[in-house]
């Protein structure tokens, strides 16, 4: 099958620098956009609810002695961190009154689970 | 077997080995000797150093200067006469000893001052199939 050899392919790249400048530019743009991911009201309420569900499951497994204390405590810490992070985010993304009320409810459920797990691991 | 040596394909960037078949780097450049009244001929195989860095690009030259700190550019370059070529195949064997080559100074320096200072550097069950 007559494919070009690597020499043919790289002849252009072994030559002028413009080729590599273009590749570097694309790489820079790629890396620059890496830091930001899309967030909105739906994603953040979903995330908060996910942590609530996680803690419920964690409490269940902790009760069954399936997980060790270290992990349960670490999950608790992560949930507390998540709650602290989500509260201002949800305040920012909730645009209508109903959204604000719903956000409050979601945060409260998480707080409740946090308290319950804290008690269970005391 | 083809007749003649394709310099670009068979020599440049080829793996070089010394008399004991140990790796001594790659052919980074070929130097032609210009002679009055006679056609130029391939005189030297260049390994490492400024020649290689220049082929990579200016940034590499700058980086190397940072490490070596010297500006003369002659350090770490091995110039081996073309006549030292013994065999050509997957690797090119040169009639030199590894220890003689300036481009191997980094290897020797690291071996002496870093690797061999750490226990266990000399012993390993070498299992060759």
């Amino acid at each position, binding site marked *: *099958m007559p*494919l*070009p050899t*690597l020499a043919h392919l790289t002849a252009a*790249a*072994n030559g002028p620098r413009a080729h*590599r400048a273009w*590749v570097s530019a694309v790489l820079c*743009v*790629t*890396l620059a*956009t*890496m830091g*930001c*991911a*899309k967030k909105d009201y739906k994603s953040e309420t*979903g995330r908060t*609810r*996910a942590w609530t*569900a*996680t803690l*419920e*499951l*964690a409490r269940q*497994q902790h009760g*069954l*002695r*399936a*997980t*060790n204390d*270290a*992990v349960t*405590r*670490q*999950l608790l810490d*992560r949930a507390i961190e998540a709650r602290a992070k989500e509260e201002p985010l949800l305040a920012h993304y909730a645009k209508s009154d109903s959204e604000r009320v719903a956000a409050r409810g979601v945060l409260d459920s998480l707080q409740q689970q946090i308290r319950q797990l804290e008690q269970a691991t005391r | 077997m083809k007749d003649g040596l394709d310099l670009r394909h068979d020599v*440049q*960037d*080829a*793996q*070089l080995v010394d008399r004991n078949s*140990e*790796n001594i*780097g*790659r052919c980074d450049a070929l130097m032609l000797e210009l002679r009055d009244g006679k056609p130029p001929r391939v005189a030297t195989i260049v390994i490492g150093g400024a020649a290689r860095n220049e*082929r*990579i*690009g200016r940034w590499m030259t700058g980086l190397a200067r940072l490490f070596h700190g010297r500006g003369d550019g002659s350090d770490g370059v091995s110039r081996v006469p073309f006549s030292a070529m013994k065999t050509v195949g997957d690797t090119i064997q040169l009639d030199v000893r590894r220890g003689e080559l300036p481009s191997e100074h*980094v*290897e020797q320096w*690291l*071996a002496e001052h870093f*690797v061999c200072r*750490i226990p*266990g*550097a*000399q012993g*390993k*069950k070498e*299992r060759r199939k």
Partner: protein
Amino acid sequence: MKKWAELALGVVTSMGGFLEVGSIATGVQGGASFGFQLGWALLLGTICLAILMEATGRLAAVSGRSYADLLREHMGIRFFIVPLVAVLIPSFLVLVSEIGGVAIALQMATGIAFRWWAIPIALVGWFLLWRGTFSIVEQGTAMLGLVSLVFLVAVFKMHPEWSAIGAGLVPSRPDNDKAKYWYLAVSILGASISPYLYLFYSAGALEDGWTIKYLNVNRITAGVGNLFGGGLALMVLVGSAIVFMPRNIQVDAYEQISLVLATPLGRGGFVLFLVTLFITCFGATVEITLANAYLLAQGFGWPWSENMKPAKDARFATTYTVVILLACIPIALGADPLKLTNISMVISAASLPVTVIPLLVLMNDERVMTTHSNGWLGNIALGSIAILAVALFVLAAPLYHLGGG
């Protein structure tokens, strides 16, 4: 007889060494968000990896040279720098993530924060490379990695709908959250098709002294071994789908993953999860470190071998020492291992073209491959992967922005 033993060993090694932090993290996230639906991404990634590994293995067996070696020789130093950098940067990030995985496993086991484990892990990994031979490093960690079979056991215990799993192996469109779906597909592909894997495989073929006689061993090791390994990775996705998706749990922390095995298998499953995470990530740590050292040493023509004593390949030994010690620094400084893993998988996916396209060309070069160069089927396969690689290069960053985080 010896060939059969080598074959079996090769398959087992591929299987036990398949899982690592990337496939675990992406599989769990994929399963939690989309159930079995992303199974096809794992299947596709596994098949691509098998094809790429068979190719680089065949390259090494036929030519007696590794892929990195041939890349330098056929591309010239100037263009070689492109794949060199394009492999070193993503694989370094993946390496940091693997160390993060080991560190988190130890944090989960002991309660001591993961940052404190970074340096000890790097030192133990370094010691294994310093004193161990290639077979010890490769096979030892992979055999221990068979503990990851616990995921298979967990899934069986949960009695999934196997037909639904099968349906997930066929590509389908998501009902909602399209951006997240495709982002996760890309990260699963990036986790499965990491360049360091097939580069390491070709260097390993040389360390093991493969010749033309090993072509069938190569085919079966690359094909069957990866298929079994991919099956295990699928079990991770399925397990997460069964435990997390009904509860709407999203995975933002490694500690959550322990629940995937704890729920069906209790304390035993939990412990085996920690052991699995530890061993598979540790194995990958050592492997990626070696892969980077091979790439540099072979590209620049230094003496190299994991079977040589360090005194005889000082630059090679220094390289892997520096690489593994540098890689533990971000974890020691407290970088979030899961976020790092997610980013590194996407960057890995984006970096594929520079190692896939030259491979396609080399596999057709009769001066290199003699009578074993690619036939039309091999070229269609590799060519398709090349097209996929370019697509991933273009889509990776936008998808991360739209659907990731």
